[in-house]
């Protein structure tokens, strides 16, 4: 049985269901509203597994599900060497979100990463500690800043309301997901640089560690055919 993991609630679940329906595969929740059970029609041998979107990368990596729908940001953040663990079968065209770095708007001297680095050096000399960047995307942000040679910063964990951390004095800058930038503007922050740290969207991922028997491969070929036919 091929196990397909999809987000268990909200807009992401609805869009996932729509995306598959457009390709001739019907996914549905069954039972009561509160029961996390599902059914799949239109393709043979597939079992629906409803999961929190944030847990799907881990389940894919552990091989407990064969396919999974989740954001590329979560896969890259949560999986070390993600490209050796999962493979993207399709970009799904929804769930768009950019991971960006933002600083207070009144920092008119800071427009680029090079500026941020220089400001961080001066900040550390002035305040005696490193410039703090609040985020929950530790791996992505650290890799990005290392790649671009930014030093004298530190990451502080923020699992929500990250845009407020600067005003609250727990961080000097933030790295977070944004789709419209509205919340950033409301919190007097501006985005740094032209390209985001990562432009994320929902992907259909295939686990490279799951047990792929004949039956699962046959179901995969069928799904793959239907996805490609619609492309």
């Amino acid at each position: 049985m091929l196990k397909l993991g999809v987000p268990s609630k909200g807009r992401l679940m609805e869009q996932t269901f729509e995306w598959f329906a457009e390709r001739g595969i019907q996914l549905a929740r069954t039972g009561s509203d509160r029961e996390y059970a599902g059914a799949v029609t239109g393709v043979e041998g597939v079992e629906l597994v409803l999961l929190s979107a944030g847990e799907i990368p881990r389940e894919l990596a552990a091989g407990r599900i064969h396919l999974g729908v989740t954001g590329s940001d979560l896969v890259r953040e949560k999986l070390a060497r993600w490209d050796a663990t999962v493979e993207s079968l399709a970009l799904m065209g929804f769930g768009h979100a950019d991971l960006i770095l933002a600083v207070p708007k009144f920092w008119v001297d800071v427009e680029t990463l090079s500026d941020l680095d220089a400001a961080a050096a001066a900040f550390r000399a002035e305040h005696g500690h490193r410039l703090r960047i609040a985020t929950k995307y530790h791996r992505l942000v650290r890799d990005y800043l290392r790649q671009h040679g930014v030093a004298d910063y530190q990451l502080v964990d923020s699992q929500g309301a990250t845009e407020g951390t600067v005003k609250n004095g727990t961080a000097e800058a933030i790295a977070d997901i944004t789709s419209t930038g509205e919340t950033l503007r409301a919190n007097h922050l501006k985005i740094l640089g032209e390209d985001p740290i990562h432009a994320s969207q929902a992907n259909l991922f295939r686990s490279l560690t799951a047990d792929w028997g004949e039956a699962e491969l046959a179901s995969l070929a069928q799904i793959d055919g239907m996805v490609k036919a619609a492309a």
Partner: protein
Amino acid sequence: MPDRAAIRDEAHRLRRAFEAAGAEPFEGAILQPADTLLDLYGEDIRGRAYVTADPLRGEQMLRPDFTVSVVQAHMESGRGEGRYAYSGLIFRQQEENPERPSEYFQTGLEIFGGDPAEADAEAFAMIRDQLDGLPVRAITGDIGVLIAAVDGLETSDIRKAALRRHLWRPERFKALLARYSSTEDLARLRGGLLAKVKAGEDVLAEAGPEIGLRSPAEVMARLGRLVADAEEPPIPAEQVALLDRILRLRGAAWAMAAPLRELAGVIPSLAEAATRMEARLAALEARGIDLDTLEFEGSFGRTTLEYYDGFVFGFLVDGQSRDNWPPVASGGRYDEMTRVLGNGRPVPAVGGVIRPEQVLKLREAQC
């Protein structure tokens, strides 16, 4: 593949050899306070060390090396000179090279105080003596030459400090150097902002409310530095080309002091670096090191942890790419770190480590 008990025994045997050569044994804790290491290495260390939490002591790290705790212990002792040997497990995440072990034995040696050239040669020779007869080749470098070259550039102290800060990040260093030597109008790049600052306009008036710890005064101070920097003449192309030549120097170590002397014609501060190098070479020769087979690379030691600031060395497996084989031994001088950990009191320091597992592997391959 040597077994773990054999590796442990070899690690301790090497330490006793260092002790026999005059070092005192050092025993440190595996759990280290994370803030010291974070402060020293920056956020990158989180991707390389294991972090754990103690309910009372806060964030702790499994030691990624011994050096930091040896330096701390020595600085606390208040002594000038000291020689320490240690052996034990260190812990490193290996996300980039999962085939490498994430906990392994290390034997090391740290020398504090004394004449720098003599101490450099002593540390190098003590490690070399333990690798005698193994198929390894020694490569040396000198971060002090790079620092001297940067210090001698015809440019502002602010630019020199920025370049020094990024010596260990080659990409950023290159980008900075390109900007500082560019003849382009730097003020133009910021869309007139610097012109307004110069004209005394209030550029923060419309910029939004002040939030966070970084104050408007700090923003204005940096703008002031940018205005001054835009007026700074470019670093002469001749000097940039010379930095490039230093980074590309490669060859027998004994043959390197002469070209440095020559380059001192363009950057005078290199003369001192050449003198230090000559003193070190003489000290190495006096300890019986064959200078003919000792290699030198101008960029060696630039991409390791950012604390070496003078002589650096590594012993690599002969005929093997350094990407596939971690060095059998490595080390270098780190005067600046003692100043940071010693609250401003610097003590010259040099040290190195051997990986006993690599030593055993090479010895097994010889049988």
